[in-house]
């Protein structure tokens, strides 16, 4: 057998947003995480904000490794705590554009308390939550977004709990920009990230992503492509009203509501509110 050497013909325009010296990455074939990195990189380049003013904070897990591949100031923190870390960074340094990229286990499960309070404060950060419906890195255990009845390594007979519908939770908690896409919607994710940079306040973007090694293999999505096909055939554009319906079930008989669910420039953000109170005696 002859060995085929990969030929690198040119560099990708987004290469400078990646720590190419850290590649290849650790993610599995068929994983959707690379798509999210690509969309974030594209948004950074399009944002008009200098790259050195962008910072990324991640937690622990597969998505938590995002910070380590992005060529911006990047912080890989503790499990569940990137939003709290990012809040400190943003409040101390309002000149920075701070984005949290982490998974559903990190942000919706162990870090659930932080995400609802960050939304309540309407603190000026962007949160990209990649939802792979399970704990991928630790071997496919159930998380707070694992669909009811889904099988994982800790729900062999089917999940008897019910998942969070994160956009609905974020709406109730006070986030001022809320969107949900799948790993197929690169352009939409990029646009949503750009809108989040512009949003004065807390922005939440959920990206449903295939996880063949963790979630997929136990739930009839053997390859990444199978889950992507499901996303393609089952997702439909929804508006805010649909938020109350149900969390993504990944069930063949149920649809996946996606879209830009909420954008409200009317609610004052944390930093402006703080400034207003501190300076209320000045005219």
């Amino acid at each position: 057998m002859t060995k085929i050497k990969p030929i690198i013909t040119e560099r990708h325009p987004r290469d400078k947003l990646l720590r190419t010296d850290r590649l290849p990455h650790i993610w599995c074939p068929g994983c959707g995480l690379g798509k999210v990195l690509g969309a974030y990189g594209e948004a950074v380049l399009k944002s008009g904000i200098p790259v050195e003013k962008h910072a990324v904070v991640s937690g622990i897990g597969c998505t938590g490794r995002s910070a380590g591949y992005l060529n911006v100031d990047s912080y890989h923190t503790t499990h569940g705590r990137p939003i709290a870390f990012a809040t400190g960074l943003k409040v101390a340094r309002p000149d920075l554009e701070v984005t949290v990229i982490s998974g559903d286990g990190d942000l919706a499960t162990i870090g659930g308390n932080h995400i609802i309070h960050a939304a309540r404060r309407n603190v000026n950060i962007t949160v990209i939550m990649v939802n792979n419906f399970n704990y991928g890195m630790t071997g496919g255990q159930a998380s707070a977004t694992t669909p009811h009845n889904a099988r994982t390594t800790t729900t062999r007979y089917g999940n008897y709990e019910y998942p969070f519908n994160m956009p609905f939770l974020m709406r109730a908690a006070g986030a001022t920009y809320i969107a949900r896409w799948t790993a197929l919607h690169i352009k939409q994710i990029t646009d949503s990230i750009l809108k989040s940079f512009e949003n004065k306040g807390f922005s939440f973007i959920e990206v449903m992503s295939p996880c063949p090694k963790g979630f997929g293999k136990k739930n009839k999505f053997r390859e990444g492509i199978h889950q992507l096909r499901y996303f393609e055939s089952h997702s439909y554009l929804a508006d805010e009203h649909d938020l109350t319906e149900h969390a993504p079930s990944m069930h063949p008989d149920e649809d996946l509501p996606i879209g830009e669910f909420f954008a409200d420039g009317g609610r004052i953000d944390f930093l402006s509110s703080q400034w207003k109170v501190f300076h209320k005696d000045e005219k």
Partner: protein
Amino acid sequence: MSEKYYLGKHFMMGNHAIVEGALMAGCRFFAGYPITPASPIAERMSWRLPEVGGAYIQMEDEIASMAAIIGASTGGVKSMTATSGPGLSLMLENIGLAYMMEVPVVIVNIMRGGPSTGMPTLTSQADVMQARWGSHGDYDMIAYAPSTVQEMFDFTIKAFNASEKYRTPVMILGDQVLGLMTSDLYVPHKEELEVIDRKIPEDGLEDYLMYDSKELIPPMAIAGMGYKVHMTGLTHNDKGYPDVSVVAQEKLMKRLKAKFKQNLSNIIEVEERYTEDAEIAVACFGSESRSVLNAVKKAREENIRVGIFRFKTIWPFPENEILDLSKRVSKIIVAEVNLGQLIHPVKENADPDCEIISLPHAGGAIHKPEEILAMIKKEATS
């Protein structure tokens, strides 16, 4: 933005003196969560920080508070949090993160009775070992133990200086007695104080490394400088990139340990009084040392040759100072408001010929001078 300080003489609460010391040291970010008996620190910070151009935020819990101050410090802003036992327990994981990332932060623990909820309104010194060993893995801690309101102010400045100088989390171990006590405080002009800021690399260096192993304490690039740093709690290489290997672990841990080992004499501070001719020494720290000093003075009036050895820093442990003391006295009484914690490193480091005696207290109050005096008398005659 103008900076407002309250200079000169005050009659101030210990917790408030910590705030004034922190602001003088350059602290411009505080994240916290209410807890007895440390809340007056957060309360004062909430209105004092705006007066000096800083930011205060009340977080949803102590885990978040600790994470937030590390985040703020990576942005180059000196940061602090304050809590008591239960809150400190929640902060421990992220204290390890600050140590591993080498991010300067200051943590105040106004100790109260434990375990668990224990005695929220009453004192203790039972978190001494937690301060040093609470987070997982091998790490080091610098811990200051003030014993007066003035020292609450002074040692807070020292704590910030040490954290900035050594790029590491530093703890202040106060207690309920000191935190809520009101006493004399003198706030000097900023110019009269030594304030240390972390070393930051110059702009635009080609070969800058966040964790350059050629240096003991590499300069710390802050967010937004353009260095595109990577910081992680994972074992990492000189660049900060994850490197989970035996070789990388040994290299990193060796340097981290050396930061403390090579600076012991610069960090450690102890105080001895009446020990020149002493046969017995009472070792103590914090609020307890106030009772001890009173008892030692009374014993001296009765011509008992006893002195006091006070830890101003508890961690890193003053091994050489204790060994030296133990060679000069025949007995060391370790008086502490816990059931025997600091006595262990004292025993471990003292000369085997020196007898080490415990004077424990289950907590809720410090020892009465008479109780300490009784122990001194007993040991002087036995």
